[in-house]
């Protein structure tokens, strides 16, 4: 059992956890502020992965730069969808449950469209590329550069966003919106502007994370959905709309996954993840790590 003490294992868990955390953060932002259930979230990850692939393959641009382009592209997609589809939905007088249910179906449609447009454009063939693949040794742990970058970027960005939400005026507005939609309108927050910003930010984060994921994983038009699922598990664990809780839950899931698998069998990974997911939803729909003011 001494392999459990291996630093390699811990680093792996942290990397997975931080990626989960960042991917889920985007989903959580959008759900928290607008109650939109973005089931197409993973497809933004896919777009980010393709951006990284093409920029590297065609122009030899490093994923570190490509991830910014991917974030921008995904953000633009977000802006188009927000102003094209969701702004009107949110401005209407529909009850929140209706918006939630509708958004799930609309995003499902969007997901199908994005996946198949990508398949039309780039074929369904899986693609991969090797960038930043030098091995870095830190003590007994050896790790590919790309994954080290992923760890640093995911942790850094997650922390930056939490700080931004805590200390900037815009961040404050976002938190106000998460806490209480109607009230924030009354106290004079420009709800539309904050929503647009959050929507774009949520999409951009997914795109950016996508580039980091695409360096180490097979890229295909249909790669995104598992990330949507994981992101949902994470934010349900951390509490829908609870941003810091979500980041922590991403880490927890990374640890559960890595050590759970090491202790039992990788076979049980999905049973484990969905088991946790179901239990949390049935017992505490508001999330395990939920503390109202944690954001």
């Amino acid at each position, binding site marked *: 059992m001494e392999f459990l003490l*291996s630093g390699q294992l811990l680093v792996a868990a942290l990397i997975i956890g931080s990626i989960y955390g960042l991917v889920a953060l985007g989903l959580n932002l959008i759900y928290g502020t607008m109650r939109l259930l973005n089931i197409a979230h993973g497809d933004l990850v896919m777009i980010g992965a393709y951006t990284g692939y093409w920029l590297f393959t065609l122009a030899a641009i490093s994923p570190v730069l490509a991830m910014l382009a991917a974030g921008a592209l995904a953000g633009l997609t977000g802006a188009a969808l927000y102003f094209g589809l969701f702004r009107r939905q949110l401005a209407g007088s529909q009850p929140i449950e209706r918006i939630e249910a509708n958004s799930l179906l609309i995003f499902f449609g969007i997901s199908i469209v994005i996946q*198949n447009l990508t398949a039309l454009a780039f074929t369904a063939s899986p693609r991969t590329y090797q960038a930043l693949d030098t091995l870095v040794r830190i003590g007994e742990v050896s790790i590919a550069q790309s994954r080290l970058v992923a760890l640093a970027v995911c942790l850094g960005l997650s922390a930056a966003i939490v700080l931004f939400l805590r200390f900037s005026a815009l961040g404050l507005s976002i938190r106000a919106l998460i806490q209480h939609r109607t009230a924030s309108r009354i106290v004079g927050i420009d709800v539309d502007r904050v929503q647009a910003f959050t929507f774009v930010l949520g999409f951009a984060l997914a795109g950016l994370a996508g580039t980091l994921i695409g360096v180490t994983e097979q890229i295909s038009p249909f790669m995104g959905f598992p990330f949507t699922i994981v992101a949902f598990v994470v934010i349900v664990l951390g509490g829908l709309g609870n941003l810091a809780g979500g980041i922590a839950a991403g880490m927890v899931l990374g640890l559960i996954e890595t050590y759970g698998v090491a202790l039992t069998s*990788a*076979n049980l*990974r999905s049973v484990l993840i969905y088991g946790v997911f179901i239990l949390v939803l049935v017992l505490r729909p508001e999330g395990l790590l939920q503390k109202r003011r944690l954001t």
Partner: protein
Amino acid sequence: MKKFVGALAASALAAAAWAAPVQAAEVRIGYSIAKTGLFAPAAPSQINAYNLWAEQVNARGGLDLGGKEKRKIELIQYDDQSNPGNAVKIYEKLITQDKVDLLLSPWGTPHHFAIASVLERHKFPMIGSTASSVQLRNMKPGNIWFTTAAVADKLATAMVGLLQSAGVKSVAILTNQLPFGQENKKFLMPALKAAGIEVLVDADYPPNIKDMTAILVKVKAAKPDGVIGLAYPGDSILYINKAREVGIAAKFQYLLVGPAIGFFRGMFKGAADGIVTLGHWSPHGDDARSKAFYAAYKKKFKQEPDYLDSVEAWVSVEILEQAVAKAGLDKDKLRQAISTGTFDTIIGKVRFDGVQNAVTPTGFLQIQKGELHVVWPKDRQTAPLAPKTGWK
């Protein structure tokens, strides 16, 4: 309401008219394959082979029909959305609506199994390709044949032979939960035991695995001579990345499915050198047929063929072409020709016994300096097996 029903009726009629067979001079050859869904990423290897074949045959003036005439090929392809249920529907449609002259096989074992009953019902012979399972022996012979040489029980025997020749005394087995991986493991475990090869780590993992570090840390600690990864393409890539990171030093490292696909070697360059995988074909021998196929494929698609799927698909059309040249399009004669004939293919002579390929021995490939060589069986070697030395 009336309007709606009217519109529906009209569109249904339009569909019927559109689907009605067109009397054409071409030989109509149909198949279904996963263009969307779970298996979509795997299908292009097979589609490419079909398209290349049709193009070559047409360039030669058409398909030889029993020596009497030559007709150009028209391929009819449908998407089964990775769903075997759809494949059943599509093959029924191909046979009864489109009235195709010949059928090619879909991608994947479940799809082959699913359409077998359709073929049987309509007495329509079809040569299978990308399917492998011990269960295929339960199929009724006569209208479906399988080119595969990689049935799990035979594979297990061959693997033990290969391991023994490489002096491997202990292994770690990592198995994907998908059927082909599990089936392989089922036959491999007793075979290893019988051969006295010790299994130090036995770990299963799910198809959607994202990180293998946990398993590989265990493998590293156990220091086996060999690692047998009963993996699929996605997890094969994951294995290379993580095994390199963790520093798995076994001299024999095997990945079931994945390394035979063109992009795999391009992706890893030196790191994948020494990896052994399933396959019994390589263009690097002295077979002219193989070299021609390889060159044409590479020229047309700007990538290497999949040494497994593209090759199986290509072998199936080679057999079909030769059988049709002998028997024409008559189903009974064709069945007879396929069942009894011996065919020249890029994997050598092929003859069927019941539904199975009775000739081709199970083989293994190894990546050596970025090229895939046949390393087993010994009489078909294009290069001898070499130990894996580090990750470059």
